[in-house]
């Protein structure tokens, strides 16, 4: 998990769920996200994030979330969820 916190908003990236489809990068209106060498998103310009959640809404794999200071719901610990059995 890659947590980026630089401005008001944070972005959690769950690499184990991510398929590098690029939808989050394509739909971000603020150019917050950039692909790494394998196409996985990096939130390199987090300070530009405006919490529109376009990335989160378009992610078919629940692999990214934007975390505002007052989130709409709880935030769960994704890595432990994936490995629980």
């Amino acid at each position, binding site marked *: 998990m890659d947590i980026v916190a630089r401005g008001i908003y944070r972005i959690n990236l769950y690499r184990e769920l991510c398929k590098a*489809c*690029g939808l989050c990068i394509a739909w971000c209106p603020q150019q917050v996200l950039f692909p790494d060498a394998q196409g996985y998103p990096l939130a390199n310009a987090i300070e530009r994030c405006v919490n529109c959640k376009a990335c989160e809404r378009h*992610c078919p794999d629940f692999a990214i*979330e934007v975390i505002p200071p007052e989130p709409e*719901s709880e*935030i769960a610990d994704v890595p432990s*969820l994936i490995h629980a059995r």
Partner: protein
Amino acid sequence: MKLQNSFILREYLRPQAFPTTWCPGCGLGIVMSSIAQAVHFRGLDKNNVAMVSGIGCTGRMSGYADFNTLHTTHGRAPAFATGLKMARPDMSVIVVMGDGDSMSIGGNHLVHAMRRNIGLTAVVVNNAVYGLTGGQSSPTTPVGGRTSTAASGSFERPMNLETLARAAGAAFYARATVNQTAALTRLIERAMGVSGFALVEVVSNCHVLYGRMNELGDASQMMKSMEEQTRRVNPVLLRRAAAPLRLTSAGSPATPVSTATAQGVHQDPRVPRGVIFERHGSRDYSSRYYAMLEQKARARA
């Protein structure tokens, strides 16, 4: 209002079954997220929610959703769901199907579930192609659409799910796309409140097969074209319409479709999305049946 992805995952999905088998960028995950959020916003207890699915890429959704889930045979999901709903009328039963699943092999079951007006929420994910088996023509492949079984383009007329639903007697019909995710969630949430058979057609992308074969671009490009080729319906105009909407395609975004809508009022080549129709005074078959049972019991007493 958008629930946090990690919260959806924990509360309504089965994260240990992730990642899904769906291709990168497939809209099915978005549909699943909207269904989960619709259940949340309706305040339903997930113990009392069932998801019944058929076969195909869409059929796999039931394995990832943390409800009472039933992954049935190809096309038969509405019939399995009918049995379940009749046994447990208090349960919210969501049926997820693909276009081939619901309109080809399962067409008969869909028609009769709508005719009975049984209280199911049907979500038909329409990507105009058979994805799991490798890109064959489906009943909603647009005329001219190239598939692995129509190399020079399909020449069959696609099924119009909307007019089918209207004719068969569905209580509610809405169309959404995987691109307008908030609207998708809202429409499914609304469908789940309908007494009777409610159908939400979700236009989705198979960029890996249909998109590639028809040079429609990647997932995000296909989603962008959904925005260009659809428009929000104006419910007032729809109510005033003298004739029902007539589509020449079931609403695939891949090929432009012509729409004659609300004759003389509005002309627009784009496919309408939103609530297309809702039958007022509709009553779920299962609640009517159980009311009949109660009446019989009272008469005996």
